């Protein structure tokens, strides 16, 4: 019997309290919680882990589903403490990481390169559910910041569950840290781990 708690629309710390009450009342062997924001997701995961549940989370449209199970039922591998929590979506055959290292695509004419790169980003969605993460480094991080015409395109990708990540040191270097509009700030360790976990890495 799977218990589902709908904690969408609740203000912090509502979701945690709601889940806690259920755990205290019935102590279910498994529990599913629906939340609608990242802080609630992390807090509910915290609470379930504190109560010795094994926890996974995935994306359901605009919402996030957190599932906790106890006992020997399912063997869920533990998340690496370094890697960012991975939000699974749809059916993914492969995990593709796209690493964008510049504002230009290729060498030759930079104007042409700019146009090609923007076109490339717009076309990324054709990779379908196999696209896992798009990581921006060096001058590429400017695509995630204000004024870039790529921002709405990346927001659309992010909405389908694709993770948009931009190198923090690069954002800082270009004074864009405060101007980031889409995705999350990442570091070299996460980038390296992403490469390790990916089935293929496309670098442009």
């Amino acid at each position, binding site marked *: 019997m799977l218990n589902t708690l709908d904690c969408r629309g609740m*203000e*912090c*710390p509502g979701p*945690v*309290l709601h889940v*806690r009450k259920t755990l205290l009342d019935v102590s279910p062997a498994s529990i599913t919680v629906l939340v609608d*924001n*990242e*802080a609630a997701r*992390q*807090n*509910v*995961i*915290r*609470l379930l882990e*504190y109560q010795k549940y094994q926890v996974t989370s995935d994306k359901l449209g605009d919402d996030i589903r957190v599932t906790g199970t106890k006992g020997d039922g399912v063997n869920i591998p533990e998340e690496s*403490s370094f890697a960012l929590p991975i939000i699974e979506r749809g059916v993914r055959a492969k995990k593709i990481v796209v690493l964008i290292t510049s504002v230009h695509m290729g060498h030759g004419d930079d104007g042409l390169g700019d146009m090609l790169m923007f076109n490339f980003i717009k076309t990324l969605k054709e990779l379908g559910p196999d696209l896992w993460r798009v990581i921006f480094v060096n001058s590429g991080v400017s695509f995630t910041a*204000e004024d870039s015409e790529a921002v709405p395109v990346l927001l659309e990708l992010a909405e389908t569950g694709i993770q948009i990540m931009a*190198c*923090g*040191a690069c*954002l*800082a270097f270009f004074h864009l*840290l*405060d*101007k*980031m*509009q889409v995705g*999350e*700030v*990442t*570091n070299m360790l996460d980038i390296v781990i992403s490469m390790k976990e990916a089935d293929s890495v496309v670098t442009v």
Partner: protein
Amino acid sequence: MTDEPVRLTTTVKGAGCAAKLAPGVLDKALCGLDLPVDPNVLVGLERADDAGVYRVSADLALVQTVDFFPPMVDDPFSFGQIAAANALSDIYAMGGVPKTAMNIVAFPSKTLDISILRAIIEGGLDKMREAGVVLVGGHTIEDSELKYGLSVTGYISPDRIMTKKNLQVGDCLILTKPLGTGIITTAIKAGLADQAVIDMVTMAMTTLNRVAALTMDSFQVHACTDITGFGFLGHLAEMVVDSEYGVRINASNVPIYSEALEWAAMGLIPAGAYNNKSFRGSFVDFSTDVNQNVQDLLYDPQTSGGLLIAVAARDAENLVDALKMNGIDCAAIVGEVVREPVSRIVVV
């Protein structure tokens, strides 16, 4: 009045500094604005510090700040005290002396009794008196949620402005209040905190940073800030980013509330802590010895938090002793400024 007092924290969505607009979002509204220029602006928006400083004459400058937020405790008088202590703190963190204040109030007069507002303002006045500050005015609007705070103006000597920058290699970092008020006030809102914990954290949040500021004045202090909404690591990052040095924090020396550690493990972490982490996390390297709950505490948004002081190493022990002698018992050396890694925070 009803028999059951209104629990102020249940009337609002965000609590205290956890209600602050996420860093990065605000910047969308502010960046690229055409700011008026004046050579007498010594500290302005472009180098965002704790407070703004405007030179009046060669030896006198005005230091100004404003701060207000929704209640993070249920008792109106305590809320007034905390909001005032929090607003005054920015002046102390700059090395200034607060002189005048104005109330900023948003009040839902249809749902809350006006006696509540009176108690809040009395709490604010209590702290203004302690600070030697006069209330010279204010502005009140009708709003669906209660908010209170102050704009404060003070004096500062133009050659003794204590900014966030100017760390020197070898400096020791001293923190004057324990961390964890964001998590604890979340637990208060949740109704999980008992009265002893509420009293303890209220006492800390209502304590002015005045004594700490006066104490540090006689030591070789190079930089200072106060710990509020961006959390310990967020405010520390403001000191470190773009500086020539890095800092090394010894997590086990950082004063924290043990209750907050337990509630962090339960997931009672304000969204502000996650915002702070995603905004500044890329500048921070944690040793694997620092457990997750301690990491969260270091990002926890503080209301009326303590001062974070960078002081010359030879003065560090003496400053801690002096702070303790003046009643700031938890004052501790929490880290040091190091040559490498540049512009990064290492937490061990």
